[in-house]
């Protein structure tokens, strides 16, 4: 996001202020009247909260980026699974995913396991990480045979320590969408709308894809749920 914002400031000669935080915290700021023009949520659910609280204009709601789940293995490992269905193989002794109670990537990973009927075979093999970063670390150190993380996180792994062997089919889990909507109280509506268009444009998307994000679905209308 920081890359895109910097590029936008250069391209549009405008100033853009970024404010990162947990959803609850950001929504509280908007409610308290902080001068925020655009809200980008890390999931559809979080945007639902903002819409429900009537803090954003739901008509402007649109997906700006998409993430994928990938299966990663230690780069040095031989005999690694080559795809999600290989996880059932007895050579996989430990599979790391995010703790589903607190890590959204872990929730999506559990959806994938359920969808592929791998829940029972993985039950005694699962190790929960308290963050996606910890899951990556377990795989980097070779303490587990495989891990499931976001494509964007797999890119953050130490050089040559982790190999991406498969990308999960998007039908196996809820969409991992980053959703933007314009804040109702904004005084910069046209500028905010322009930035949303910019975010979905090729230039911004190529920057995002360098970080491992996938393009948003083609619908230019607000994403239907």
């Amino acid at each position, binding site marked *: 996001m920081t890359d895109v914002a910097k590029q936008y400031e250069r391209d549009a000669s405008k100033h853009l202020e970024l404010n990162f935080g947990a959803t609850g915290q950001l929504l509280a700021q908007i409610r308290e009247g902080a001068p925020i023009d655009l809200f980008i949520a890390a999931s559809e659910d979080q945007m639902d909260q903002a819409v429900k609280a009537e803090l954003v204009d739901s008509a402007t709601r649109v997906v700006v980026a998409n993430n994928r789940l990938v299966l990663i293995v230690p780069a040095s490992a031989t005999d690694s699974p080559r795809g999600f269905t290989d996880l059932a193989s007895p050579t996989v*002794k*430990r599979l790391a995913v995010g*703790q589903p*109670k*607190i890590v959204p990537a872990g929730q999506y990973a559990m959806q994938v396991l359920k969808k592929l009927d791998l829940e029972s075979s993985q*039950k005694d093999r*699962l*190790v*929960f*990480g*308290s963050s996606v970063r910890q899951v990556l670390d*377990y795989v980097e*150190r*070779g*303490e*587990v045979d495989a891990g499931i993380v976001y494509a964007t996180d797999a890119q953050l792994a130490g050089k040559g320590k982790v190999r991406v062997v498969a990308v999960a089919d998007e039908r196996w889990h809820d969409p991992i969408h980053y959703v933007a909507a314009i804040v109702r109280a904004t005084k910069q509506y046209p500028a905010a709308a322009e930035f949303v268009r910019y975010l979905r444009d090729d230039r911004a998307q190529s920057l995002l894809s360098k970080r491992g994000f996938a393009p948003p679905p083609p619908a230019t209308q607000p994403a239907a749920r």
Partner: protein
Amino acid sequence: MSFVAPMFLSLKVALVATMLVALVGIPLAFAMARRRFPGRGVLDALLIVPLVLPPTVVGYLILIVFGAHGMIGSILHHAFGYSIVFNWHGAVVASTIVALPLLYLPAKAAFANIEREMEDLSRVMGANGLQIFWHVSLPLARRGIASGLVLAYARALGEFGATVMVMGDLPDRSTLPISIYNDYVSGELSHAAPAVIALAAISLAMVLLYNRTIRP
């Protein structure tokens, strides 16, 4: 998650760890109380230092040794496809190391306080070293050993820092202290109440037992 399964796992881990502590700690305490040898001071310090080290440091060191790339871990991994990491055996190793000093210190003191005439007399009467240890020294040191074992068990039961690093967070297979922490992290602290009460009650009982064992 119910606290019953974590409680049984904790009791099991603590029991196995205490047996290992006895197996390793009692002979070591006896040897250290009787023998002089080069490096004795260093070995003594190494056995005691887990008492004051942060458990996270112990956990880190265990991972260095028993991790997938560790000195012992890589051998186990390649030869048997086995690892103590992400396994309740790892919890046993962590608890054993952390609890060992609690037995070692009182046991060593108890052996040192035995009147040497008793052992000398046995030797004159023809007993060998092992017989002396088993029939004379061990019974005379039993109070110190028993109190140490009670404390070691209580400490092993509550071990968290090193255990959570070595055993990790396994679904439906966490120890009591880890289940309390998981409830806290996932914003369900109120769910931890039964586990907290169980741990507090068992620990209190162990301390009461300890007080009885040291009473002359």
